[in-house]
C-alpha cells in the first residue's frame, strides 16, 4: 500500500477512536444529521419520481383538448362542434369525449367516470364497468361484483364490475370508473351529440399553436388546452408543493447548521490541549487538519449514506408514507401507487454538496487556528 494511503488509514483509525470517546454526543449528532438528509432526500426523490411519472402519463394524452366555456365555466360541447372542427386546416382527427365526476356518499369520495375511447385497452360492455384499484379497495370490489350507484337524477343504477385496472399508473387511474357511452349518457343524463370535451390530433406538431388559434377564431366560446401547457402546469404544481416542503426543511437545515457550527467551532480547551500534544509529538499542522477533516467527513458521509438509503426505501418501498398528505392529494381516493425508482444524479450531487460539504468545512476550518499553535506549548502544562 502506498504511504499516503496507510497514512490516511491511520488517521481514520485515530479519528474513529477519537470519535468513540464521545459516543453519545457523536451518535446524537449523526442521528440528527441522518434525519435531515433523509427528509431532504425523500422530498427530492419523491418529487423527481412523481414528475417523471406524470410526464410519462401525459405523453400519451392528446395534443389538444377543446373545452367549451360558458360564463367562464366548463360546459358541455353542443352538437355540431365536432364537424366544424373537422373542417379546420391542420386538424388530423377529432373525437368527442365523455367524462365527469361522481361523488360516492358511501365512501365519501369522488370518482372520475369516463367513456373509454374507441381504441382503448379496456373496452367495456353495456351494464358493466371497469374500476380503478383505489376505488375497488374502497368499496371492496372484485370482478363479477355488482355495484349500485345513485345518479344525480336520483335514479339507481347497477353495474357489474368487469375488471379492476392494474396498478401500472395508479396515480391517474386510481379513482377511475369506465363505462359505455350509452350507460354514461343515461347515468348523467347527457343527450346524444353532447360531449364533455373534444380531443384533437394535429397533423404537424409544430403547428399546434396555429391550429389552436384558428380554433379559437372559429369557435370563440371554446378553449383549446395544449398538452405542453398541461405539462408545464403539472411541473409548476409539483414544484410548488415541493417548494413548501423544501422551505420547511431549509429551516430545519439552518437550525442544524447553527448547531453544527456551534459544536464544531466551539473548540474546547481539552481539544486545544490535544492538538498541542499531537503537534509536539510530531504531527504537522496538515496532519491535524486532515484528522479533523476525516472527523467531519466520516460523520457527514455516514449520515448522507444512511439518510439517502433510508429515503430511497421510504419513497420507493414504503410509498412515501410520511409525505402523502402534503405532496399528493388531488384525488380523495388516495392512490397507493409504487413509483418507479428513479435517481437523478444532479439531485444527489446537490444534496451531497449542501450536506456533506458544509459540515466538513465547519469541523475543519475552526481547527486551523488551534492547529497553527506552536508545538512547544505542550511542554508547559
Amino acid at each position, binding site marked *: 500500500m502506498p504511504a499516503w494511503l496507510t497514512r490516511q488509514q*491511520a488517521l481514520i483509525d485515530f479519528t474513529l477512536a477519537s470519535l468513540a*470517546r*464521545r459516543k453519545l454526543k457523536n451518535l446524537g449528532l449523526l442521528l440528527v444529521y441522518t434525519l435531515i438528509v433523509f427528509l431532504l432526500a425523500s422530498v427530492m426523490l419523491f418529487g423527481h419520481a412523481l414528475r417523471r411519472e406524470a410526464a410519462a402519463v401525459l405523453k400519451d394524452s392528446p395534443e389538444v383538448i377543446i373545452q367549451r366555456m360558458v360564463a367562464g365555466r366548463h360546459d358541455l360541447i353542443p352538437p355540431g362542434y365536432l364537424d366544424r372542427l373537422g373542417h379546420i386546416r391542420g386538424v388530423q382527427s377529432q373525437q368527442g369525449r365523455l367524462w365527469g365526476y361522481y361523488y360516492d356518499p358511501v365512501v365519501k369520495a369522488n370518482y372520475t367516470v369516463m367513456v373509454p375511447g374507441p381504441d382503448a385497452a379496456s373496452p367495456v360492455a353495456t351494464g358493466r364497468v371497469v374500476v380503478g384499484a383505489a376505488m375497488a379497495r374502497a368499496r371492496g370490489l372484485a370482478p363479477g361484483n355488482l355495484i349500485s350507484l345513485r345518479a344525480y337524477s336520483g335514479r339507481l343504477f347497477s353495474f357489474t364490475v368487469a375488471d379492476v385496472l392494474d396498478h401500472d399508473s395508479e396515480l391517474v387511474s386510481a379513482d377511475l370508473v369506465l363505462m359505455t357511452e350509452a350507460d354514461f349518457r343515461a347515468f348523467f343524463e347527457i343527450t346524444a351529440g353532447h360531449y364533455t370535451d373534444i380531443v384533437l390530433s394535429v397533423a404537424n406538431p409544430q403547428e399546434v399553436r396555429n391550429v389552436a388559434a384558428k380554433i379559437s377564431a372559429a369557435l370563440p366560446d371554446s378553449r383549446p388546452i395544449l398538452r405542453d401547457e398541461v405539462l408545464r402546469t403539472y411541473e409548476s404544481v409539483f414544484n410548488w408543493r415541493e417548494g413548501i416542503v423544501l422551505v420547511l426543511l431549509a429551516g430545519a437545515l439552518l437550525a442544524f447548521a447553527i448547531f453544527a457550527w456551534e459544536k464544531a467551532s466551539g473548540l474546547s480547551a481539552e481539544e486545544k490541549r490535544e492538538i498541542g500534544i499531537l503537534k509536539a*509529538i510530531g504531527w504537522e499542522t496538515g496532519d491535524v487538519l486532515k484528522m479533523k477533516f476525516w472527523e467531519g467527513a466520516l460523520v457527514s458521509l455516514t449520515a448522507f449514506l444512511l439518510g439517502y438509503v433510508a429515503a430511497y426505501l421510504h419513497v420507493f418501498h414504503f410509498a412515501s408514507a410520511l409525505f402523502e398528505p402534503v405532496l399528493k392529494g388531488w384525488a380523495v381516493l388516495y392512490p397507493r401507487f409504487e413509483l418507479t425508482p428513479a435517481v437523478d444524479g444532479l439531485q444527489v450531487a446537490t444534496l451531497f454538496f449542501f450536506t456533506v460539504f458544509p459540515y466538513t468545512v465547519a469541523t475543519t476550518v475552526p481547527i486551523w487556528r488551534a492547529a497553527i499553535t506552536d508545538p512547544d506549548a505542550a511542554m508547559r*502544562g
Partner: protein
Amino acid sequence: MIELLNVRKAYNQGRSNEFWALDGIDLVVERGRMTAFRGPSGSGKTTLLTLVGCLARPTSGRVRLDGRDISGLPERFLTQIRRRTFGFVFQQFNLIQGLSARDNIMLPAYPLGGDGRALRERAEELLVALRLGHRGDARVEWLSGGEQQRVAIARALINDPEVVIADEPTANLDSALAREFLAIVEGLKDQGKTILLSSHDPLVTEAGMVDRVHSLRDGRLVTAG
C-alpha cells in the same frame, strides 16, 4: 551530536513584557550520553529542551544537529526532523485522555504512514518491555502515575528516535518510581540512545548513569560539572 552556539531565546519579544529565558548558551551534547540540566524553577531548562528538541526556534544563535544548522528551518522541516530524531517525555505526560494506552503509544507514528501491522507489533513490544503488556487496552486515565509515565516513554520510543528528551521526569513520581524511571533510561542509554533530562531532583542529577550535568541560572549556564 547537538551543538548550541550563543543561543538566546526571548518570549514576547518587542513587547513590554519581553523576557529573555535563555541568554547566550554555548553547549555540546554528545551522542550516546546522558545529559542532565539542573537549576531552579524558571531558570530556562524547559526552554532549552524545546530548542534542542526542535519544538521551537532560538531568537538568535545557532542550533546544529550533526553539523547541520537547523535553527532557521521552517516549521514543516523542523517537525520532520523532530519526529524522526526526538522522543519526548513531558512533565505532565501529556497523554490523550479517553484513548487506550496502545492508541496513545502509536500516535507519533501515524503521520509517518508506515505499515500498520508492523506499527502494532512495535507498540506491543514496547508495552511488554515497559511492563504494560496487560494494560494496552486500558484508557490512560485509568492508569497509575507510574504506568502513565511508562506509556509516555513508550510513546516517545515508537518512532525509534536517536534522542530521548524528558522534562522533569520524576517531578510527579515517588522515589521508588523515580528509580524505576532511571533504570529504564539507563537501559535506553545502553541501547545507544542519547538522553537529555531536566530536573532539580538530586536523585536524578546525582545518579551514576548521568554523564554530564549542566547548571542553569537566569538563562545562563553557570558551571560545567
